[in-house]
């Protein structure tokens, strides 16, 4: 038997995130204009958006955005049978698209609003774990079907093209309003465009957009395999998405701690910290060093209620943060923030220092939706 030789993808990118910390939902023009402003950071081989708060009417159901390659009817039939067997499907519809948009050979997109129907042994799983398991099944076992996003009251829209063309294709500025928008423009160097390969990456309502190439990929990937995450896409971003899922969702570690894991402070700094802080940093490093993300990266991670941006420990990739009223921005470039507003404040965070946006109050979000 010939060994499996997966090729890891190499890429560079632009990313942008904006959150209204009061929970007010707003349209796509800020994110679209900003990411378009960084056009040279992408090469038209991938763009995408994650938006939170878009399906208030179905907010108790998992929203599955599913792509069918080559508009495969067989894949769609198989997926729908699978969903019927494993979920209550309360609504299913084709995701509206604009046929005039400047994209080539788009696949078919559907969305399904579902509630888990657990049977037998699976009753022990939490709803979230159950959904993760089923999504993994679709992605790995049903040919030509791929789940873009699987969270509640949120969705991912992505594909091959410049991000503004993808936005146009999914008619984001007309159809959707959300309180967090993250966006990504891609510059892959070694993969042909594939719609599933664009960012954001998503598990449940966790999304990641990422810029950079991780030199610690092999270490990170093999560590995550021990926790049952198998990288099927061979992108750095997938590794980060799984790491976020493991640390934040499954192990419930807060962002501040996760930032110290992904971009741990240098030993030189740790040695000079006060005893308490030092012990914490030592323990984190001891246990989680395999999830230290080494090499240049900037990420924007979001889930309901929170968005954060982070760059690597020695800041090899750029990140800028900005604020205007309740709006918080993170961006690859300051110019993109200035393209959409005159910010009250912009700053450049240190390597490893997370920029965190949280809803001012949970009620804000609830009242709004």
């Amino acid at each position, binding site marked *: 038997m010939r060994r499996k030789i997966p090729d890891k993808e190499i890429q560079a990118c632009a990313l942008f995130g904006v959150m209204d910390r009061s929970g007010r939902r707003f349209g796509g023009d800020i994110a679209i204009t900003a990411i378009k402003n960084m056009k040279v950071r992408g090469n038209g081989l991938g763009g995408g958006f994650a938006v939170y708060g878009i399906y208030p009417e179905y907010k108790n159901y998992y929203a599955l955005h599913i792509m069918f390659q080559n508009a495969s009817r067989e894949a769609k039939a198989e997926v729908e049978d699978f969903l019927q067997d494993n979920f209550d499907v309360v609504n299913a519809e084709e995701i509206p698209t604009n046929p005039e948009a400047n994209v080539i050979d788009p696949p078919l997109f559907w969305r399904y609003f579902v509630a888990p129907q657990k049977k037998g042994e699976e009753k022990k799983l939490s709803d979230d774990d159950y959904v993760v398991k089923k999504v993994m099944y679709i992605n790995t076992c049903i040919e030509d079907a791929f789940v873009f996003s699987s969270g509640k009251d949120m969705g991912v829209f992505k594909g091959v093209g410049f991000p503004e063309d993808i936005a146009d294709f999914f008619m984001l500025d007309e159809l959707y309003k959300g309180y967090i928008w993250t966006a990504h423009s891609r510059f892959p160097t070694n993969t042909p465009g594939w719609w599933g390969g664009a960012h954001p990456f998503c598990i449940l309502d966790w999304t990641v957009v990422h810029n950079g190439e991780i030199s610690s990929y092999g270490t990170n990937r*093999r*560590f995550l395999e021990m926790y049952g995450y198998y990288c099927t896409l061979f992108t750095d971003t997938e590794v980060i998405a799984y790491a976020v899922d493991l640390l934040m969702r499954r*192990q419930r570690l807060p962002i501040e*701690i996760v930032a110290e894991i992904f971009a741990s402070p*240098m030993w030189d700094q740790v040695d000079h910290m006060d005893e308490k802080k030092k012990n914490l940093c030592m323990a984190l490093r001891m246990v989680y060093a395999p999830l230290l993300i080494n*090499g240049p990266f900037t990420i924007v991670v979001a889930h309901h209620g929170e968005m954060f941006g982070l760059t690597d420990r020695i800041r*090899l990739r750029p990140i800028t943060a900005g604020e205007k009223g309740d709006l918080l921005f993170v961006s690859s470039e300051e110019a993109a923030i200035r393209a959409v507003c005159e910010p009250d404040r912009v700053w450049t965070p240190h390597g490893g220092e997370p920029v965190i946006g949280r809803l001012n109050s949970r009620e804000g979000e609830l009242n709004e939706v």
Partner: protein
Amino acid sequence: MKFKTHLLPEFIVKRDEDRCTRCKVCVKQCPFGVHSYDEENDRIISREELCVGCQRCVVYCPENALIVEPYPGGYRPNEYWTGEYIRDIKKQSESGGVILTSTGAQRRLKIYWDHILLNASQVTNPSIDPLREPMELRTFLGRKPDALEIEYEGEDVKIKTELYPNLLIETPILFAGMSYGAISYNAFKSLAMAAKEFGTLFNTGEGGLPREMREEFKDCTIVQCASGRFGVDPEYLNSAAAIEIKIGQGAKPGIGGHLPGEKVSADISATRMIPEGTDALSPAPHHDIYSIEDLSMLIYALKEATNYEKPVCVKIAAVHNVAAIASGIVRAGADIVAIDGFRGGTGATPKIMREHVGIPVELALAAVDQRLREERIRHKCSIIVGGGIRCAADVAKAVALGADAVYIGTAALIALGCTMCQRCHTGKCAWGICTQDPKLSKRLNPKVGAQRLVNLLRGWSLELKDVLGGMGINAIESLRGNRDHLRGVGLEEWELEVLGIKGAGE
């Protein structure tokens, strides 16, 4: 019956008579009695059949008058019946015994390190300049929990998970177990002093730890508990940073050890807790370990004796089923697994064991690391590999294959002066390393020895930092198990598969 030996000399001693001033340094330096002074003719003569090629006289001859080189003569060349086989047969036909030797396997077998190449960054991710940016080699050794549970108390972050004891070393290189008895006190002390100065650990081997060293070196010592149980008592166990149960050794898997009575001097007898002048015999197995459950009992007995404050390491030789064995050892409660490869050295071993038993450590390491990951227990232990680590590149490759750290034994002795003459078992080491003869061992000054070792650690650590920086990595942890940074050349499909690496160009 007495024979005229049929053996050819192994070395030839060439003395430049014009340079030689008859100073007799070589006569004094050679413990094998090669050189002697012929008063009548006022010249130095050499009995080359006694020469082991240790090069001591060559280095110390003040006139550079000596060259010692392999004997140029030999039998009719034959690829199959090589000179070595012919010589061994002749030796045994004269002695009727086992061929004894020392150090590690020397036979021609694929050296996997030399078929593995390291990666570097170009463009898509930047390399990092180790002269400008920090490069971190600090390494933890020991068991890690599955996750850390964190609790906030106001501003304070509290770790709720109980942590296991871990060792913290400044570079992923430790000194391998070499006992006081097998090596001289001065060599032993050199290792301890160097480990302490550099912030790493040395390993006592199975011969105990001299009392006067306990207080000073307790934070940089791994004490060994081997089948002979020499010098093991609660005080010994508690005067260390970690404890190692030695099951086997790469140079002679499956067999025990034997320190002849002549070497058991008063000091060694006190350290090993055996009568002076008696043979120190280490049985092949531990007589209380006949299964994995027994091993587990010993691991926990040692943990009990040390209040669960010290990681326990289990050292095994790399043998055929090493992956399954290592997994059993982790499940039995070991915090560290040490794997000693086929090339590992020793102070004395039958040649047949050294040359034919065990497997290369590169393959063993790759198999163990992969197996522990598949069983999802890799974080429950650290892996240290040893057995023929020759340079910093071997260290980097070992770490990328999955090792947490490496043990160096032979390389450390070479730093102290060893020239790989393979005569440790004679007890006449000309460099004062593998000997208990006070006249020889005083040739090695522990202060100088320690400095040489520290220099070596420093040199290798700097090289490791260069390699990391080239890959665009600034912490050794991000290289650990990162086989994406390795490529194979000249390897078969199955070998790439076991190593878990791609071929060059793939």
